[in-house]
């Protein structure tokens, strides 16, 4: 008989107590690895540093003390005796969990428009479905209320919620479109062509898209500007994921490499040869420590993203199609009609999965863990299924950050705050704490870089404006060198050259008039002598 250790934890964020205790203290709250005492000569500075250190320690202590307030605890499935957790089926589980939780394990049969891409909002309240054949649906799956349902008679390759449930982007046949909650098409991003994968960077308000052409494009959704287009030069991109820790975009390519990108560099920061076939799926854990990649070669590899070292590899019988790592570190892998969930598979190599699920007859297309809930949603050929995965979601939430229970007012406040605290695209780097640090470059090199950075931006802004505002000189043919000369010459100066020019102009004028007359068929006073000898006549 299978047992769920604590039934509460299957509820929305609020279940069980966290064991984010002593072992997490170091990783969560402390900011620096070097805490050694540096010998400081200056007394004042020494005192200052000491004081700062003390403050730092106090802050850590205070932060740690707030753990008392984290009432909820996470729990996992526990097997008794001969039982194996991966043998428990959803139906069995549902019998042992509370009704609310059981109601969250559901299946949507959408046979005509599949396979489906799915996305959850950041707070895990809303679900967005995008069927390949043009079906888009946004709804609150707990309440069962539909926000919008669209039939865009076009291929849909990906769907993505933006900063909240009010907007979502859909990668359609050719362009990316942005819709609002009610399904109104707001924008068509014509520069994002044939997009296959999308990611949204919530702190930077950037929508990152990549498509068959292999261009990574960043679109600032708050201003509407396209931040940059980066050419990957590696053909069609097969997968995309973001590192939530440092907002670096991970791209999977057909040549088996995974490349790491930031908007301000035209070349990838890092390239990792992960697979021998195309990289089908990528996922990075919340802390930015581990990356899981799945390739067409049937491998599933875990990488340490900080060291760029392969930690360990698993094997899937058929190539995996989708991957996701939950907030609590569960790894969901879909291969064929199967969904396998691995517990602690990142740090240590596991022999057996935590849970398995077979979706007979339908290949799984996309897998997502629902934030702050013990749910795993996956879109497949025949619709959408939500699985109950005990211990998947973060039980405690920070309402100032992402609030699953936010009110309308809070959502609005959060949006404004988010926009005010928006980070610049240039702040994206492998080490997100670089801001304010001392530049290791030589002063001259740094100065050049600074000039380059500033001119780039000003060019972009000012150049465009100039192009629009500056009037063009459209009066043609009215000017001549002689006229110009006369115009420039001061009026009261009469010299030989001026006289000559005046004569020449006069002659030109006469010639024009003659020409006009000739054209009109009027009689023209013909000269007997040519221009060279004319002065001798008369």
């Amino acid at each position, binding site marked *: 008989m299978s047992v769920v250790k604590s039934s509460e934890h299957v509820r929305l964020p609020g279940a069980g107590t966290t064991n984010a205790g002593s072992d997490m203290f170091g990783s969560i709250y402390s900011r620096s690895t070097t805490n050694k005492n540096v010998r400081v000569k200056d007394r004042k500075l020494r005192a200052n*540093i000491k004081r700062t250190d003390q403050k*730092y320690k106090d802050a850590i202590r*205070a*932060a740690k003390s707030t753990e008392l307030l984290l009432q909820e605890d996470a729990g996992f499935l526990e097997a008794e005796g001969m039982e194996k957790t991966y043998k428990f089926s959803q139906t069995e589980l549902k019998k042992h969990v509370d009704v609310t939780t059981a109601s969250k394990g559901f299946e949507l049969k959408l046979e005509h428009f599949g396979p489906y891409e799915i996305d959850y909002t950041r707070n895990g309240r809303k679900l967005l479905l995008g069927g390949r054949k043009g079906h888009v649906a946004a709804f609150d799956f707990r309440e069962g209320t539909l926000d919008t349902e669209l039939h865009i008679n076009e291929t849909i390759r990906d769907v993505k919620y933006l900063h909240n449930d009010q907007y979502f982007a859909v990668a359609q046949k050719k362009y990316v479109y942005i819709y609002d909650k009610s399904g109104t098409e707001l924008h068509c991003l014509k520069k994002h062509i044939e997009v296959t994968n999308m990611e949204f960077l919530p702190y930077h308000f950037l929508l990152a898209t990549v498509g068959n052409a292999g261009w990574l494009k960043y679109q600032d959704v708050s201003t509407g500007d396209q931040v940059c287009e980066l050419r990957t030069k590696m053909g069609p991109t097969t997968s995309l994921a973001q590192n939530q820790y440092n907002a670096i975009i991970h791209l999977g390519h057909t040549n*088996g490499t995974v490349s790491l990108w930031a908007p301000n560099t035209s070349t990838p920061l890092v390239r990792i040869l992960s697979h021998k076939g195309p990289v089908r799926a990528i996922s990075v854990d919340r802390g930015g420590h581990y990356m899981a990649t799945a390739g067409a070669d049937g491998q599933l590899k875990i990488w340490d993203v900080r060291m760029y070292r*392969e930690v360990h590899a698993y*094997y899937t019988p058929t190539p995996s199609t989708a991957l996701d790592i939950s907030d609590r570190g569960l790894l969901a892998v879909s291969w064929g009609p199967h969904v396998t969930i691995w517990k602690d598979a990142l740090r240590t*190599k596991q022999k057996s999965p935590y849970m398995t699920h077979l979706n007979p007859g339908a290949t799984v297309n996309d897998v997502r863990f629902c934030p702050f809930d013990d749910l795993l949603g996956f879109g497949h050929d025949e619709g959408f299924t939500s699985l109950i995965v005990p211990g998947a979601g973060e039980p405690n939430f920070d309402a100032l950050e992402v609030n699953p229970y936010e009110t309308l007012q809070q959502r609005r406040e959060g949006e404004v705050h988010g926009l005010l605290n928006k980070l610049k695209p240039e702040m994206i780097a492998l080490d997100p704490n670089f801001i304010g640090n001392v530049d290791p470059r030589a002063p001259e090199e740094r100065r050049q870089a*600074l000039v380059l950075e500033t001119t780039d931006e000003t060019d972009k802004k000012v150049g465009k404006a100039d192009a629009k505002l500056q009037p063009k000189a459209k009066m043609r043919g009215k000017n001549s060198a002689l006229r110009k000369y006369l115009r420039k010459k001061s009026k009261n100066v009469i010299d030989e050259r001026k006289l000559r020019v005046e004569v020449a102009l006069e002659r030109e004028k006469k010639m024009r008039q003659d020409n006009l007359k000739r054209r009109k068929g009027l009689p023209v006073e013909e000269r007997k002598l040519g221009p060279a000898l004319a002065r001798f006549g008369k």
Partner: protein
Amino acid sequence: MTTTNFSAGSLGLTRAQGTRPCYHEIPQLLADATESQMAKLDKSKAKQPDIAAKKKLEEALRQVEDDEIINSDSDDSFLADDHDKDGGDESDGEGSIALDDVDKFGILKAAGNSPAGTEDDGGSAYHDSESAEDETPSSSGTSDIDGSAQSITTRLSDIESDSPSLEEDDDNAIRSLQKAIDNASRKSEEETFKIKKRKKLGLPTHFTPTVDEDDGTFVPAKKKVTLDDIRAHTSSSFGTRSLARLDELEKRSKGKSEVVKSRLGRRLEARVDRAAAYEIAKAEVGKWEDTVKRNREAEHLEFPLQQSGGVATADITNSVDADAEVYGEKLVYGLEDREFSLDEVVTRRNELRRMRELMFREEMRAKRVKKIKSKTYRKIHKREKERAQEIAAQLEGEPEGEDEEDYDRLVKRARERMELRHKNTSKWARDVKRMNLHKDKGTREELEEMLRRGEDLTRKIEGDDDEITDDDDDDELPSIPDMEEEAENAKGIMTMKFMKEAEERLRKQTREVFEDLRRMEGGDDEIEEQVTDSAIKIINEGRRQYAPGGQEAKGLAEDAVEESNAADYAPGPLERKMATIVVKDGGISSVTSSRQKLNRTESKKVEHKSAEASNPWIQDVEPGSVAKVQSVLSLSKDSTRDAKTEARLKRARKNAEKAANAVANGDADVKINVNQILQVRDVHDDGDAGADGFADSQVTMVYKGGRRAKPAEFQQRELVKRAFAGDDVVREFEAEKKRTIEDEGDKEIDVTLPGWGSWTGKGVRKPQKKFVQKIEGISPKNRKDSKLKNVIINEKAAKRSAKYTAGTVPFPYETREQYERSLRMPIGRQWATQTTVQRLTKPKVMVKPGVVIEPLSAPFAT
């Protein structure tokens, strides 16, 4: 109050072409001058005693006495005033004699009878030579003058005793002396009046060098010769009557005057005052120090501050309480005696606290100072300390020459004198020697004088030593052979012919004198007694030791010096010194000889060694290396088949080893084994996984049920096949990596101008120089991905935005680490608790609106 003024009139003449006299030299010069003058007088009077001169002198003395009486009667208050300013030792200095006026004709000019004149002179001398005096001990002048005074008194006694033998031309001298005395008395009267005026104005009147109005010479009058001095240095030959008079004078003066402390100089006083004022001001300002410091260091200030220094309030109240506890008993005890008001108690407590605080601070300071190791600091502070001691001594008005300090000072002075350039090593002396100027009489005299002075100065120290060591030998005369021996040892200028001649002359004369003295010694016991007496009295005065025979002998000896122009006349100590040197020389030579021996043996050894080294048959080579050589040789020459094969085998073995090593290191040129590259490696238990092979090392995503399981072999083949599907990928990636390394690595650009320096034609060489510009990049070894096989890290792309970084480490921080460490803590609400955020964002200064901010008040109400 009587003063006898002498002036060294001849000074200007004698020093004119020589070295310029310094201030502290002047007394000495003066003394010398007087001596020389007196010597002349002496010589002449030796033949004919002049009664008239004696009479005149006596008359003068009487006059002096009378004047003194008058002055002392009339100027009682003034006297006291004067003494206030003079040194304590001069308190009994009525009738002291300042040696001021021996005019250029070498005549005793005035037995001046005005104390005022002397005072005036002294005062002015002080003012002008203040700077000089700061450096030299004040006693230097005194003893010089003492010396000269002594010599003069000697002459006086001579005059008295031998007055009948004075020559006729000395009549003129006496007459002029009389005149001078009259002049001096008149002048001194005028000056007395002046001084009185000056006193009223409050101007300092002592210790100023004056320029004699008559002849424009410097008149140093820092210290006056006291009666005691005179009495001490008088020999039996001096008139007993005049001595008696002096005694009388002293008695009278002692009855009247008191020992009054002298005042310091104006500047000195001002300095001391300033120092004291500074201390007070510092203490006053220092009251706020703690408060200010605390406020400065405070992380947060809230205005208006609490009374007595903001944050400090709590601390202070605490300390007050503690104090109350500590001193509680004392206070209670005090209260028992009489009733204190609350204010009194508070003030007393404050006082106590302050004292304690001061003591504590002093203690801390002392501790700190004690730790200081700087030599310069010590030097400076030592000087300061000395100065302070000096000031203290002056303030206390201790009579000089009584303390140990005095002795120290004498020693110092002596040392200083040792450094004077009274040797013929000076540039001037050398020039004289070089340019044969010594043929000129004046120059020669000067040179000799200089040398003699040098001798005198050094001898003074020796005399001191003598006094301490052998007092008994004082009355013994040096033997003539000793002198002769010394003459033989003479060096430098003494080796010159004229000097030798002079010496010869001197020796002859000395011998005569010597004979005379012998006779006198044998005959007159009285003299001897007096001599010994004098010797006892002058214990502190090294100058008395010119000739161990006492005053007369000394005088005679000096006469001889004067006549013969010789610089040295063989004193005992010098000779002894020489002897010791000789002894030492002997010692040294013996030592050197022994050392030489040693050296010789050593050198022998060295030679032996070198011989060994040069011996081709004995090579200093290590056995191992020899063996090596041998083996090589054997292989090449003794080419037996076995050896050859053995060598070949060895080589083969070595190659094999090398290859193995290369394989192990991955150096070997082996084709890329894709299997190896993509082999799945289990980090956690790689032992099993690595060995067991591909399929076993991997955990499939399938739950392997028994029914579904296929034969392992088949499965593996399938898997491997699938795994190798995109084989090219690996090669491509490696090529890519190589390209990146090249791109980011060092680059060489050929910047040679095409056609530049290239010519055509027969026999034209190709231009050899290539202009290559090297752009430094990242070397393959330093790359972050140098050890990561499947990773390319773009070093250039990893640049961070310059906009969001600091160009340099900002001011208060010294290093990058310090600065970045201060940044690590985020302040925002997202990362910190509410209280933390509030604390971190609290402004440094907060002012309560609408409140008057009072200035800081002193923490201690004193």
